[in-house]
């Protein structure tokens, strides 16, 4: 099992760092899955996470100048590692002016991702900073836990309002309540509601637009016949929503959510070279 990759371009490094920063805000530990062409940051819905799950997919070609990977076995050419994304984020944080960043899987005392940063310096030789990030190799028998989640059979799918606006609304609501209700309809309307003993606050968004999901055989039938004005709603943990919104460092090209009434909210954030899916289950 081998892995080595190199980033030389500063813009790519910057983008990659931003992705890692976003992941670090969403999960304390997560799984990094490496294949020949893609990297995935995966969080599966264990009770410990509060039931949230995350699937983030990147094309390695968009970030790395060199990328060599040899998986566990020839027919299973993949590597699954458990790591703390905050470590990777910290290692990349001070590398923003680097000449090159190399990432390598090593196993000296224990399996590590070794991030080597070559920094410019006034002296004849560059400064080298290395960060050894401990990782756990996930055995093949557990790989099934990390399969790509399916898009749920949602009631309503709607584009999100400007994330900045949504974030500031949710942040203020967070001070008042632990849970928030997201409701939306097929008429491009979304409401964010909190209700406590003392106060209830609702923020209304209009004209958001509903993404046109290609109708696959009966899959979206529940959504097709739906009354346009009828709201699908789910009450979710406000902190989880706030974490998702706060972690976004760049405006996505497309941001939408799918609501399964009273069950789960599925967020999809698409950037040019990264896609992020985040599932927040409804509170009981």
């Amino acid at each position: 099992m081998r892995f080595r990759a190199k980033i030389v371009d500063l813009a790519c490094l910057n983008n990659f760092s931003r992705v890692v920063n976003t992941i670090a805000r969403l999960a304390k530990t997560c799984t990094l899955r490496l294949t020949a062409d893609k990297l995935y940051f995966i969080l599966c819905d264990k009770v410990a996470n509060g039931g949230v799950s995350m699937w983030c997919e990147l094309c390695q070609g968009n970030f790395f100048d060199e990328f060599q990977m040899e998986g566990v076995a020839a027919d299973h050419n993949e590597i699954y590692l458990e790591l703390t994304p905050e470590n990777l984020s910290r290692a990349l944080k001070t590398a923003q002016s680097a000449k090159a960043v190399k990432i390598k899987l090593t196993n000296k005392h224990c399996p590590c991702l070794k991030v080597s940063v070559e920094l410019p310096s006034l002296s004849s030789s560059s400064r080298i900073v290395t960060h050894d990030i401990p990782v756990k190799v996930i055995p093949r028998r557990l790989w099934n836990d990390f399969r790509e989640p399916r898009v749920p059979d949602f009631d309503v799918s709607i584009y999100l309002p400007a994330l900045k606006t949504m974030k500031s609304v949710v942040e203020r609501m967070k001070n008042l309540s632990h849970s928030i209700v997201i409701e939306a309809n097929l008429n491009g309307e979304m409401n964010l509601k909190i209700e406590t003993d003392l106060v209830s606050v609702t923020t209304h968004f209009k004209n958001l637009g509903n993404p046109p999901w290609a109708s696959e055989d009966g899959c979206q039938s529940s959504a097709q016949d739906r009354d346009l004005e009828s709201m699908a709603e789910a009450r979710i943990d406000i902190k989880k929503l706030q974490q998702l919104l706060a972690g976004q460092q760049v405006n996505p090209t497309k941001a939408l959510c799918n609501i399964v009434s009273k069950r789960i909210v599925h967020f999809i954030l698409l950037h040019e070279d990264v896609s992020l899916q985040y599932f927040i289950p409804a509170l009981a």
Partner: protein
Amino acid sequence: MKCVIAGSNVRALGRAVHALSRIGDELYLEPTGSGLSLRAASPSRSAFASFLLAPLFFQLYQPGPPAAPPRCKVHMKSFLGVFRSLPALEKTVERCLLLLRPRASRLVLQLHCKYGITRTHNLAFQECERLQAVFDTQRCASSLCAPARVLAEAVVHFPQTLAEVTLAAGPGGRISLRSYVEDEAELGKAMVTELWLAPDEFQAVAVVPDSRITFCLKEFRGLLAFAEASNLPLTIHYDAPGRPAIFSLEDPLMEAHLVLATLLDPESSSQPPAANGISHAPAPSDDFADDLESYMIAMETESYGEDSGAPPSPTFPLRTPHPIESDPQEEEEEEEEDGAVPGTPPHKKFRSLFFGSVMTSGGPSPAPSQEVLAEDSDGEC
């Protein structure tokens, strides 16, 4: 004592206080003929910092009668509060007056600001004995000198929460800094960062090959911030693991020293004999005797009598593979880091520096074979 500081030196004083505040909770002031000395030490005596501001630093410098130099200490927080916002100091403060009023037990800090505003702070002080660490850069086998910027750029790669860092002289004259992982359990969990600096990044390198020391990064960052702001080169003197490392900077107006205990290296087989607790100290000179006293007294508020009665404390062996032998001529034992008191932070076996083996209330109990001869009677802090 009465001093007046003008202009940008007020900010320099503020920065010095910020650096000292990273070390200890009490600020010791001592006006001397060669300048005003500001000092602090960590509660566990594993760190000591001093800033000496030369008379030229001041617009007016009246240290007071040399026969009875006032030595006092104030709460660090109170003093720091006056200089808390460095940008505000720069923008509004024109002059700063420091005045000691012994009868009222007050240290007066008066800031003369723009627009005719005067802010007067009256800080309570206590008289105390001299706080002095004994250290001698001449006795250090290795030294490095680098512009503060280089060291600051190096240190930025380490997490803010990292407690200790190991400085090592590596192959090719390169110097490395590496995060120190305390115990085996941490190895598999903690991220380890290592940085290499080429010898030509330094202004001077004179190190013992393969030497290394581990010291507290948090305490070092304070002085480093000061050095960076003042744009002064920083010199590091160090010796064998367990002996203190000394970080110094100076310019014509001011000199600063930070002395940090270093970790005793259990794996190092080449412990110099002195590290075993027996020091081959020169016969104590008068100055030495004076400092000897200070060890015993070591900044506890109540001044002990001259003859404190307690003999110089024995050494507390810690993590050293060789047994400590006690030397009957204890006078000579009061060497720099003789007292290996379990120090700060808890769980760390730093050899305490140079304050002797006065047990601090927070420390773990001494090795069973040793008795505590000088109890900590300081109730405060």
